[in-house]
């Protein structure tokens, strides 16, 4: 018991120290600024359902797409030591595929929505496999490989949409993007939880986590130990493709509209950021998906805080940058090792004092 307690304090929370400190600082800052910031109220929405409302709900709701993408991005980062910058564009494609499938039928039922979701998954996984092949088989740097889809993805979405911004309206779509009648928690939040649980289960029952880490740490060594490194990398991109489809479908369902130009714009950068804030090395290797999820919430808490302070949305990015510089610098290996050194120094002095006292 004592050792466990000690372990937490000695090593901190490990990788999660930085994201948790970041979120705590934001919470404390907001509590000082305006204690009512975190108040949650229960209201009826316009469909007559009882729902929860408040800034906290807004934050965890709005961060859903980012959280899902960050999970997939963590896996790709860990396996390939690079990032996929095409997730926003790919989500636009997945969203467009989802809407076009829904519009092809006359009525929207649970079955057609499910079918459209699988259709979107198929699209996103195909594009994920495309990226993955470039990275894993042709050994192209991930950023360059995914730059291709980043550049042309939204044009592809435009073709699928036939040039317009199609809309779909159906109670089922509203339920996915907003609230399921009778459940006061926004559905996107529930989807994030489900996706996180699926990841947890996959890691628990397969050796994907271990294999991914070993490929990321030393590809050659992993291969010599019988791990198919190419396949693991490719797989990580395909799994990210699934996450992209989920994010795209959530985003489309929120408004029942797909605009290929604006849907999940610049989300790739936020997703990479979430991975970095989560304490994961962007060079690959060891990873913690929970860190990335917290990272996603940190980013959105920051945005919503700035909005609540009525900071102009054009300035929000600049403020965000300042906070991110701080977080990344504090989390950098140089600062970390200095900090650890200082801590050991302090501890040594303390032990010295105590031994003296004992003598």
């Amino acid at each position, binding site marked *: 018991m004592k050792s466990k307690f000690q372990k937490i304090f000695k090593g901190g929370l490990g990788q999660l120290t930085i994201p948790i400190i970041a979120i705590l600082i934001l919470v404390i800052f907001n509590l000082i600024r305006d204690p009512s910031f975190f108040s949650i109220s229960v209201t009826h*929405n*316009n469909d007559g359902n009882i729902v929860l409302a408040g800034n906290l709900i*807004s934050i965890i709701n*709005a961060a859903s797409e980012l959280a899902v993408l960050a999970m997939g991005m963590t896996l790709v980062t860990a396996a390939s030591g690079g990032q996929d910058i095409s997730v926003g564009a790919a989500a636009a494609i997945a969203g467009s595929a989802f809407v076009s499938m829904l519009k092809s039928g006359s009525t929207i039922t649970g079955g057609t929505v499910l079918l459209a979701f699988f259709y979107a998954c198929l699209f996103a996984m195909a594009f994920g496999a495309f990226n993955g092949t470039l990275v894993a088989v042709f050994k192209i740097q991930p950023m360059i490989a995914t730059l291709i889809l980043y550049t042309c993805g939204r044009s592809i979405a435009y073709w699928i949409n036939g*040039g317009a*911004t199609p809309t779909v309206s159906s109670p089922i779509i509203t339920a996915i993007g907003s*609230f399921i009648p009778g459940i006061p928690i926004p559905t996107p939040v529930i989807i994030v939880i489900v996706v996180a649980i699926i990841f947890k289960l996959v890691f628990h029952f397969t050796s994907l986590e271990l294999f991914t880490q070993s490929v990321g740490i030393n590809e050659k060594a992993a291969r010599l130990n019988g791990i198919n490194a190419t396949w693991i990398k490719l797989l990580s991109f395909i799994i990210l493709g699934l996450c992209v489809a989920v994010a795209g479908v959530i985003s489309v369902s929120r408004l029942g509209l797909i605009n290929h130009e604006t849907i999940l714009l610049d989300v790739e950068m936020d997703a990479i950021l979430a991975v970095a804030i989560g304490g994961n090395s962007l060079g690959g290797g060891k990873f913690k998906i929970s860190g990335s999820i917290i990272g996603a919430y940190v980013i959105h808490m920051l945005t919503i805080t700035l*909005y609540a302070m009525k900071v*102009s949305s054009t300035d929000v990015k600049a403020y965000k940058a300042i906070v991110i510089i701080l977080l990344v610098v504090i989390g950098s290996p140089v600062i970390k090792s200095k900090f650890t050194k200082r801590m050991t120094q302090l501890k040594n002095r303390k032990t010295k004092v105590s031994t003296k006292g004992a003598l």
Partner: protein
Amino acid sequence: MKKRLKSILMTGVLAMSMFLTACGSSGGDKGGDSTTASSGGDKTTEAAATKDDATGTIKVGVVNNPPSESGYREANVKDMEAVFSAENGYELKTFYSLKNDEQLQAAQGFITEGVDYLLVSAAETTGWDEVLKNAQEAGIKVYLFDRMIDVDESLYEAAVVSDMSAEGDLAVKWLLDQNLPEYNVIHIQGAMGSDAQIGRTGALDEQFASGKMNKVVQQTATWDEAEAKKIVESVINSGEKFNVIYAENDGMAKGAVAALDEAGITHGVDGDVIVMGFDCNKWALRELLAKKWNYDGQCSPFQAQIISDLIQGKTTASSKKIINEEKGFDATTITQEDIDTYGLGE
């Protein structure tokens, strides 16, 4: 040292050759062959070819931006094709590109081909002097539509353009006519600096300055629906009072409405909050018809009929610049017919 000299020389030669080729190509254009127009662009359609026309068909060459640019452009292109149709006695040649130099080449191609009228919506405002002069020399009459060009007025017959600020004026005038006891406005702006944003913001800013309307929040969502939703959510969470949402396009208005719906705030004709959008997408106008929104303004993409009337002498232009009349729809008066006629997209 030697190496440096060499590189300077090389650059000089390169610059020289580029200059020469530039001269060469513009010289070639003058002589021009008709194929340049059709080969340069991404889409070229030619109406039924009645080459030797004593039959009286009017040949019109349209140089425009591609319909894929926006919903506005799509409607604009469709309108042109509908008005300048064979049934109306026209022979239409079109060229679409986002690139100014391709447009210039195509225009030159139309001139050498010998159209009667040249209609231009330029990608850029500069570089058109030469081509329009050539048109004048060839006796081709030029009409500008949608966008002005930086050339002497004598080079074109008339320019049918939108007055961006008129859109905002019309919308704000409508809002003032609602005679609300007080105006607490959430203003969601488009991408800062874009024509549409400047035009749609101006009139409202005047009201804020004069104190007639209260600015609850003024934020840009850069045309992003999800961002608009976040902005409105943050206002709702802060507990501030508002009764008007002025969103500078339909998508952002939809985002704002989604936030209202989740918070259980009523909107539309009988609701607590007035919702205003712009662009007149068909789906947005349907929201109006369902009385869930209150107003939708439009930067009219329909210039073809005005130009056609001018060509056929049905009307005469009082000045070189003709301001295309803007439209705005009120939820209480809109009809299904309006949606079919004026709605953009599907």
